[in-house]
């Protein structure tokens, strides 16, 4: 529904950064500061407009899509529409993106008045913001994937600009990732369009998809998400890109772009292909747990904070994947919360860590080092999941899932091995961050005004959301519940329709409780028996 009588609020939020980039392009090159002010102003305006979005949840407990804009039919023959909306899954990602981008811009000004290429970087960041917001708001699969590819293109542009000095390995990685994602997206769009299906997500969720198509599309989209979120073993591009970037872009990548993958898993992989997700989920969850262990171990061996954070993010991606493919509400809920927590934490760690390590005359610093000590301490505490910080929320929920939930493996022993591996991975991640903190504590730099603003804003948010978790968890809960409820219905329907597929013994799906604190967890979706490959049903 649209609470504003059809007013296109989301279109404005998505278009504002694009407009800013256009205006910035018109500003003469000789006035780089004017470009920056234009960019900051438009990014701040986007944040201001986005702050109206939570009002949609003041009296809504249904988890439905809010501030809907569309669907406006674009290409009937191919089922393409222009369709925007936000729900509990995308709301916080939109807010997070609009909040972090102006912050990064402010940070980027520090001590870099004459930096060459700053104008292009600022405009590139605006393009990236617009593409990311489009991805989070789009309710048409084709539009969503197109925005997704546009976001990767903008990132490739930014990385190419910055990595020229260090060789173009990072740019090559990004170009390859972008190409793979783009062709995969095209394949999925063609797959749906050739069957005459509408690509708007609510309709698509209710449309039966043949099993063969479900399988290949599911794997292609999981691959797209895995690549974008730098999940093991598709993570190689991220540390390479991260090494050659300035800190603001590194933070932008680590705190916003990587969220796309996790978002995609929850937005379309599970809702559109719940049967495939149930069937292949356990294997993917195992890959996620392996990624968690791998990322944690590699992060433990790193000597710099940024490298540690990069691999810590890879590890957390694995944890998110495991949470999503547990196919229970605690897992999905925890995965979303953890995505948000990781974004804020990694942004704070990277920005404050860089600020403290800068080789700069002490006289330039206007704020004492204690400020940065406090800020980065809170970021590290959030990273290890100390209660009272935002990091505790997602981690605790995922651990509830890990210990109390069922992991859909075929045996109890498998479940227990997975639980132990997750706990070990989380502990190793904490060890890696604590080791990095001990190394970091030796630096003694003060802060610029802009850096102090970042040092204040991010830790405040980390603590605020840690103390009032309902601010973010309330809108998420009903939406996650709806996603799982629809998934159960769809699995039922698919099993009825594709009966012989499964040859599968079906369990009656128990009701789902969306209150994720309740335990023990029920298993929400029907789990076909092992040996599930289609028999007698052509794809």
């Amino acid at each position, binding site marked *: 529904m649209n609470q504003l009588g059809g007013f296109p609020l989301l279109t404005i939020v998505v278009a504002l950064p694009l407009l800013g980039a256009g205006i910035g392009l018109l500003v003469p090159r000789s006035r780089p500061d004017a470009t920056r002010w234009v960019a900051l102003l438009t990014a701040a305006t986007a944040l201001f407009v986005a702050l109206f979005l939570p009002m949609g949840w003041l009296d809504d407990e249904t988890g439905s899509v809010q501030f809907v804009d569309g669907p406006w039919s674009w290409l009937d023959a191919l089922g393409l529409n222009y369709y925007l909306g936000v729900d509990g899954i995308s709301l916080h990602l939109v807010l997070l993106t609009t909040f972090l981008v102006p912050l990064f811009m402010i940070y980027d000004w520090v001590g870099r008045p004459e930096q060459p290429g700053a104008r292009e970087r600022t405009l590139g960041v605006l393009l990236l913001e617009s593409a990311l917001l489009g991805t989070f708001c789009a309710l048409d699969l084709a539009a969503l994937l197109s925005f997704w590819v546009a976001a990767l293109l903008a990132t490739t542009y930014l990385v190419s600009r910055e990595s020229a000095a260090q060789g173009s390995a990072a740019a090559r990685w990004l*170009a390859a990732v972008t190409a793979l994602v783009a062709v995969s997206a095209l394949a999925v769009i*063609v797959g749906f369009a050739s069957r005459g299906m509408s690509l708007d997500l609510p309709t698509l969720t209710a449309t039966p998809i043949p099993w063969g198509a479900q399988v290949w599309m599911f794997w292609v989209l999981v691959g797209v998400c895995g690549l974008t979120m730098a999940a093991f073993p598709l993570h190689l591009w991220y540390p390479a890109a991260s090494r050659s970037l300035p800190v603001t872009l590194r933070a932008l990548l680590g705190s916003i772009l990587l969220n796309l993958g996790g978002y995609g898993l929850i937005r379309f992989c599970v809702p559109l292909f719940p049967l495939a997700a149930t069937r292949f989920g356990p294997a993917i969850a195992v890959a996620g747990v392996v990624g968690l262990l791998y990322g944690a171990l590699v992060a433990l061996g790193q000597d710099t904070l940024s490298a540690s954070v990069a691999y810590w993010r890879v590890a957390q991606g694995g944890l998110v994947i495991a949470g999503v493919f547990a196919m229970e509400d605690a897992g999905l809920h925890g995965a979303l919360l953890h995505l948000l927590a990781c974004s804020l934490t990694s942004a704070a760690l990277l920005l404050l860590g860089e600020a403290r390590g800068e080789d700069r005359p002490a006289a330039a610093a206007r704020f004492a080092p204690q400020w940065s000590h406090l800020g980065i301490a809170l970021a590290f505490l959030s990273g290890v999941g100390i209660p009272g910080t935002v990091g505790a929320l997602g981690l605790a929920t995922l651990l509830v899932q890990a210990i109390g939930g069922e992991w859909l493996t075929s045996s109890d022993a498998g479940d227990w091995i997975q639980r132990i591996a997750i706990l070990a991975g989380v502990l190793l991640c904490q060890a890696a961050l604590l080791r990095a903190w001990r190394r970091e504590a030796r630096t003694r730099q003060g802060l610029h005004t802009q850096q102090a603003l970042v040092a204040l804003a991010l830790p405040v948010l980390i603590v605020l959301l840690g103390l009032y978790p309902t601010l973010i968890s309330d809108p998420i809960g009903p939406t996650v519940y709806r996603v799982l409820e629809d998934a159960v219905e769809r699995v039922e329907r698919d099993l009825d329709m594709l009966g012989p597929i499964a040859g599968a013994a079906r369990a009656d799906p128990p009701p789902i409780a969306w209150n994720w604190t309740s335990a023990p967890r029920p298993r929400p979706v029907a789990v076909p028996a092992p040996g599930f490959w289609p028999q007698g049903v052509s794809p």
Partner: protein
Amino acid sequence: MTSPPLLPLGALLTLVSAALALSLAGRGRASGRFAAWIAIAATVVAPALTTIVVLSGQSASLQGMVALDGRTMPGVLFACASGGFAVLLELGNARRTRAPRFALILYAVAGVVVVAQSTHMLPAVLGLAVFAAALGALMRPAVSWTYFVLSAVGLATLCLGVVLMYGASGSLRTDVIALQAADGATKPLAVAGQGLLLAGLGLGIGLAPFHTWIAGNLARLSVSESYLAGVLAPQAALAMLSRLAQAWPLQGRQLIAWLGAISVVYGYGRALAAGRGRPALAGIVTAQAGTLILHTLLPGDSSGPALYLAIGSFALTGACLWAGVAAPPHPGGLGPSSPWLRAALSVGLLNLVGLLPLLGATVQIQLYGGLLREGYIGPLIAAAAGQLTAWVLGVRWMTALWAGPYADVQSTPELEIVAGAAATAIVLGGLNAGAIAQWLVALAGAG
């Protein structure tokens, strides 16, 4: 109401009259710019006349040879638009503009217009010959010799194919040939004829495995000549094939699909290996030829609009790319590096690789969806691999374009007009692709 007998030739006569006038205008340097605007006016008036006639509900045929109807109109529009772009590229890029060169461009466009309007193989072959002759005359002698020989071989092969098809069907009318094929009356002689026809056309448009000449040749041509050879030639070939596509023998369709897919893979691979800029264009031409051949395999209902959208998309992409890589030896020295030209070139590249909502993406979705429905799975996967290469090429080209110094992107007003108009048409065409496709279907139905 009886139509005037020469009505179907309205566009052709406009172009030829202008070309004749320019041929007689002399070789003075001063007349060059004026001549260019006359040529551009001709490329605007000719399709305008055609559009007015068709939209007023009239259709006419000249002895069953040349037709003017809704089905032929898009081909005329795209040919004239490409001709206008070629004139502007010539004007914006050439050191000395001369009236006869614009006349030759108009002759080439007139040849393609004849092919687009042909309902009979004879005028189609004649149109191709006129196009090849005009383009050969436009080139420098050292290059034109190669081009003439290749064109002669291509046309001879094509003529042999036409003769065999006549032997098989007893008619050279395209509708008769297509009808016999639709009835399942395909004979070995007709299959051989179609094979030779495809080989002859493939040689002209750089389709693999007949592509080897195109890289060396394109590199030695001026931007406008290269645009005509790389973009207008495929339009002529596809205009011919669009009428015969339904006549492809069932047994040969998989082979044709593989031919197209291999062209896509090889073309984009070669372009990627060449890097970016002008060396990459030959590969892109081969890949696009493959894509267009794949379009001819789509079923009858959708092949017309989809093929015309594809031709339009390629013409516009070509305009962006060719304008973007032009390095003009302008009389006043090299122009400043232009962000607008870079932006237009980027739009062209994004259209080439297929990012929604640009026109190229909708064309690709239609093409690959059609191939999936028709069961060309192998060629589809191969073409998708080629598309992956195209994305790598496009991303690397674009990042090089924006992230670093790019000496080739120089600006003159004419280049900016070409690139800007083409980029705008790509965006608007993409946003209105549905309406355009419906319009094309309605036009074809009316025809």
